[in-house]
């Protein structure tokens, strides 16, 4: 009798899967906007410092803990912490590793549907018709203009695309690690990079698109993005450090519970050091090397600085860029492949968000793949319907993204790094990390992982909370606190009912997850007793 255990089929496959999980919309939309906003020089210094002391160390940590947990047959964060800590409370520490990917999936798949919808609409020519109001199109397509307005199923509506991406995601996740996730990433990641290179060549060869505006040329566009500005002043700005560290943190998907789950399907002697570094490097190449040269320079060339400043991630991607492509030679084709690129980046990420949930349900409740896919499909569908209906100003999406996709993520990453450096112990963790390793991690990272990364993470989290929750004005001498919209929406004079409902959904999901962890703990405890008796 042989028991079937899933595993990756190739090393490149797992690297592309981890990289695919990390490469998302943020690489092509959020990063360039942040770098341009804070001035290229100081931002990039803070960005690379954060990469070295937060991004890469946590990636190694997650890979190591995940592979170690996989030896005991666990693939979820809760299960891995149970095996690692051997304490009744251990499994509860990992609950965020279930909540975060599942709840992020609920709204991320909605954004993924926008990407596919925009790609199809661009291909059909609808986005390049004369007189299109892109803000209006975005408001109607995404439902940002009012609750319930996106609940339609025409070609110019999000509904049909949401159904398609939902079916695609669950089809591939049902097929499993190798036939599903690995297969998709093996094709999607090289395709994504190839498309990005094609668009990059197009952008860099645009010259001066409008002869009447000679200042808006390719060099000026690159300068807008990369000119260093006042580096010394920039580095003294805590908001810049917060933005740079946040970008690294969210871009690499550390703390999601995804990398730890993916690594748990590795074998004992599979390398995690070089593989983790390669996945991080792939993400950085897509973000800095491709994303940094495409979106902002292109937008500047056609719309000037005024067209970019103040645009968030969605504004840049779904309002500004369609207009840029409409003015570009062969813009219809480039718009189609650009949104296809975003869709590929999104689907490799959304698939990764489902796997921790699937793994937890299967090993915690002892259910088969069909049942786990059905249960997770039902839970995530409820959340996605909620985000889809309560779409005015994207309030539900934004609220869940803030409390789950940002705050909980910080907490989970801090737990991970503390467990590795202080609970497992840096020397033991080092030894486990280097089993089967094809390169050595420089010893300086022992100090970084044990002291600097946790301290940096906590400092950034405190600063983030002070700014984004309590509304600190970043002044020590004349500190002022004006609670932000995220707090005002919940307990302010004029609370927002959608924000309150969204937080209610998070609370219900957290209670539901804790109950599941409790049930899983009983299953695992029985298993532990059987193991002890056998030895």
């Amino acid at each position, binding site marked *: *009798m*042989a*028991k*079937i*255990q*899933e*595993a*990756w*089929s*190739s*090393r*490149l496959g797992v*690297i592309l899967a981890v990289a695919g999980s990390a490469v998302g919309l943020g690489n092509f939309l959020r990063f360039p906007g942040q770098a341009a906003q804070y001035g*290229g*020089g100081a931002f*990039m210094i803070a960005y*690379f410092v954060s990469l070295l002391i937060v991004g890469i160390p946590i990636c190694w940590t997650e890979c190591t803990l995940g592979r170690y947990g996989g*030896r*005991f*047959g666990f693939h979820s964060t809760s299960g891995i912490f149970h095996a690692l800590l051997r304490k009744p409370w251990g499994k509860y520490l990992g609950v965020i590793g279930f909540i975060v990917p599942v709840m992020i999936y609920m709204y991320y798949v909605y954004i993924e549907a926008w990407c596919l919808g925009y790609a199809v609409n661009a291909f059909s020519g609808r986005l390049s018709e004369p007189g299109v109001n892109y803000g209006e199109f975005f408001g109607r397509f995404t439902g940002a203009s009012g609750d319930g307005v996106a609940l339609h199923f025409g070609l110019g509506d999000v509904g049909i695309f949401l159904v398609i991406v939902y079916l695609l995601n669950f089809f591939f996740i049902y097929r*499993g*690690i*190798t*036939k599903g996730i*690995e297969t998709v990433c093996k094709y999607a990641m090289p395709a994504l990079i190839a498309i990005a290179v094609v668009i990059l060549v197009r952008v860099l060869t645009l010259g001066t698109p409008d002869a009447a505006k000679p200042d808006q040329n390719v*060099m*000026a566009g*690159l*300068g807008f993005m*990369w*000119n*260093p500005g006042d580096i010394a002043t920039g580095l003294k700005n805590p908001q810049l450090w917060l933005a740079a560290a946040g970008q690294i943190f969210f871009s690499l998907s550390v703390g999601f519970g995804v990398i730890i789950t993916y690594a748990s399907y590795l*074998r004992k002697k599979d*390398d995690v050091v*070089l*593989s983790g*570094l*390669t996945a991080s*490097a*792939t993400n*950085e*190449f897509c*973000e*800095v*090397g491709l994303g*940094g*040269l495409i979106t902002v320079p292109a937008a500047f060339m056609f719309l000037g600085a005024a067209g970019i400043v103040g645009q968030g991630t969605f504004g840049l991607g779904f309002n500004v860029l369609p207009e840029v492509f409409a003015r570009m030679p062969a813009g219809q084709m480039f718009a189609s492949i650009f949104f296809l690129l975003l869709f590929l980046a999104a689907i490799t990420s959304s698939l990764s968000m489902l796997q921790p949930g699937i793994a937890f349900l299967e090993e915690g409740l002892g259910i088969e793949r069909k049942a786990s896919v059905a249960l997770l499909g039902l839970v995530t569908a409820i959340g996605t319907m909620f985000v889809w209906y309560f779409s005015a100003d994207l309030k539900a999406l934004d609220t869940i993204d803030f409390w789950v996709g940002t705050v909980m993520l910080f907490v989970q990453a801090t737990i991970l790094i503390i467990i590795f450096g202080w609970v497992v112990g840096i020397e033991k963790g080092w030894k486990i990390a280097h089993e089967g390793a*094809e*390169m050595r991690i420089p010893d300086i990272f022992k100090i970084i992982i044990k002291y600097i990364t946790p301290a940096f993470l906590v400092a950034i989290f405190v600063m983030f909370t002070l700014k984004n929750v309590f509304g600190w004005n970043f002044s020590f001498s004349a500190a002022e606190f004006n609670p932000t919209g995220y707090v005002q929406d919940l307990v302010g004079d004029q609370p927002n009912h959608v924000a309150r409902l969204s937080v209610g959904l998070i609370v219900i999901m957290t209670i539901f997850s804790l109950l599941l962890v409790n049930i899983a703990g009983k299953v695992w405890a029985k298993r532990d007793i*059987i*193991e002890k008796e*056998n030895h």
Partner: protein
Amino acid sequence: MTTGGWINLILSVGFVTVLFVWCIWRVLRGPKDPAKLAHIEPLDEDEAERR
């Protein structure tokens, strides 16, 4: 685009590109999988029990 902008661009894009190419090169020239796995890894019942 100022000289500082060029330096910033070349250092940033150069660093991530070199790191990416070096990593991929190391992965591709590294040892091949000792046994080409199928999409599943069958385990002996004993080993599965230990897990």
